[in-house]
């Protein structure tokens, strides 16, 4: 028997004008509005700057490339 079947359904919380809006965990964090642009006229460099802003929030320091440019196949 499912004992929850007989329990009364919880009432949704009534919003009150005085209390601040509830912030759910899923909505928390730093407000960030990603640039939404598409089509041929979208500026890819501006999109990249927006992307890197987010990337650097997640990973402030990227490892510097330590491998020098190497090889012996230079034809261009």
């Amino acid at each position, binding site marked *: 028997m499912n004992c929850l079947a007989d329990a009364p359904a919880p009432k949704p919380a009534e919003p009150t004008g005085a209390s601040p809006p509830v912030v759910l965990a899923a909505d928390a964090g730093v407000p960030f509005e990603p640039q939404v642009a598409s089509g041929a006229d979208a500026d*890819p*460099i*501006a*999109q*990249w*700057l927006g*992307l*890197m*802003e987010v*990337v*650097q929030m997640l990973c402030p*320091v*990227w490892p*510097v*490339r*330590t*491998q*020098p*440019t*190497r*090889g*012996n*196949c*230079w*034809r*261009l």
Partner: protein
Amino acid sequence: MPSLAEQIREALALFANSNTQPALIGGLAVVAHQVVRATQDVDFLLAAEAADTVHQALLNLGYQCVHRSAEAANYVRGTEGLDLLYAHRPLARRLLAQATPLETPMGLLRVVSVEGLIGFKLQGFANDPTRTRDLDDIRALVHKHRHTLNRAELREYFALFNQQVLLDELLG
């Protein structure tokens, strides 16, 4: 993202003061050609005769040169990197001369053509097959521009590196 944008802006000023006009190659050029991905690679194609002037100017800005050859140079400053490829053969010099100016938040950037960029990516992959990112970039660029690519020019670059089969696969 101030530091990377600032670094590029500073590099552009350095090039202007050195009376040279390099062209963007590498990951940021991939972005400029509409394949937007995360990258901090600052790579330029530079006329070979400007190598010494730019080398000294970069040292003056606090960069350390970690590698320099007749073909390329790598500089670091803290967590910032800047790589140069020298144009001294006719193909690279042509690509440098034909680079297209692009107005960006960091200033006017000259960018090599998408065909030329694919060629340089192919050269990078030929020199270091562990750089699979180059292959991914080539695939993405070909896919993105497949209807407008100059296929004869592409064939020239792929033939240089004996990779015609790869091109057929990419276009197939």
